[in-house]
């Protein structure tokens, strides 16, 4: 194999390869690697910071969301209480109104009944007195004589006339 046979070039190969590597290493280490590695690290830091920031923002957003949800829940609770109170109030008001109306109706009914009763009593009273007067008058006539048809008719009419006069007299009084 030439790699083992060409002994004369060994020194040259070793020397130039090591020297070339040393120069490459120097050039890259001095000029090329620092800015690129720095850029890499800066980007890495920036990405890490951005991720941390976004995580923090996410946490903040979650906290705000949680707070909002709690506030919303509390508001819902309050609204429900207010609605319940309003409903209770309305129910009470309605019941009170109903009771008052019922009381009024009962009162009106009672008054009407009383008025009807008094009118009836009055009417009955009047009827009783008319009937008595009529009966008295009829009996008087009957007792005086036996009457013919013409007389009867006349007597009745007289009696009625008498009753009417009596009534008118009373009304005038």
């Amino acid at each position, binding site marked *: *194999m*030439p*790699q*083992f046979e*060409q002994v*004369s*070039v*060994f*020194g*040259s*190969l*070793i*020397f*130039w*390869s*090591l020297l*070339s*590597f040393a120069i*490459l*290493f120097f*050039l*890259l*280490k001095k*000029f*090329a*690697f620092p*800015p*690129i*590695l*720095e*850029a*890499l690290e*800066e*980007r890495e830091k920036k990405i890490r910071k951005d991720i941390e920031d976004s995580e923090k923002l996410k946490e903040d957003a979650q906290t705000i969301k949680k707070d909002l949800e709690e506030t919303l829940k509390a508001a819902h609770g309050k609204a429900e209480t207010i609605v319940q109170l309003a409903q209770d109030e309305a129910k009470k008001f309605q019941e009170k109104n109903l009771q008052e109306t019922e009381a009024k109706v009962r009162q009106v009914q009672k008054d009407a009944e009383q008025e009807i009763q008094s009118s009836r009593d009055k009417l009955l009273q009047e009827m009783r007195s008319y009937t008595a007067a009529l009966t008295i008058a009829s009996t008087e006539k009957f007792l005086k004589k036996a009457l013919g048809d013409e007389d009867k008719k006349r007597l009745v009419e007289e009696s009625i006339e008498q009753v009417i006069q009596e009534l008118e007299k009373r009304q005038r009084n």
Partner: protein
Amino acid sequence: MESPLHHFEVHTIIPIHIGGLDLSINNAVVAMWVGLAIIAGSFMLVVNRGVSPIPGKLQSVLEISLEFIRSMVYEFIGEDEGKKYVPFIASLFLFILACNLIGLVPGSYTITSQVVVTGAFATGIFIMTLVIGFCKHGMHFLGILVPPGVPKIMIPLMIPIEIISMLARPISLAVRLFANMTAGHTVLAVLFGLALTSPAWVSWMPFGFTIIINGLEIAIAFIQAYIFTTLTCVYIGDVIKLH
């Protein structure tokens, strides 16, 4: 038919002799320089344009490769200790990758198919790990030769085994890269030789295989560069952490 190992021969282009030492510039060195120039040029282009927070295509590729190497270093050495080794490991990876890939260009040369080159790098890394170990732990570094939990009676047996294991590391590192590169190129040369010498009605088959193996060689170029640098990280991590 030409030997499939013929293209591993090194030809001197500019002869240089200093104090009896042959430091001639040859085709392998020139091919390596072309590869390194592409790598260095790409980085310099990006840096000269200004590293943008929103990277372009080339910057993205370089950033991805650097990020990949950096995460590898952090994984095996640790973030705190590994930071200072990132430039070295990245340069090593890019150097080997450039040498591996440039060798796939027809007429070029793969310097990593030279065992002396891979051996020089592996030895250099081995010595570097020893220096790091002694600098970091002093004489306690020798404790690396005694795995934890070994009974005291086994220590005299374990120390030679551990020494052999340590010495085998650079050898395996060097031979792995050299053998993979040599084998791949030899297979390619054999297949291409077959395609050229066989009759037209059958030559399409080895030629087709050449294309497939060439694709495979590109993957191997990346894999071998990755393995070499990963093992370097593992060795450095071992001497830093001491088991």
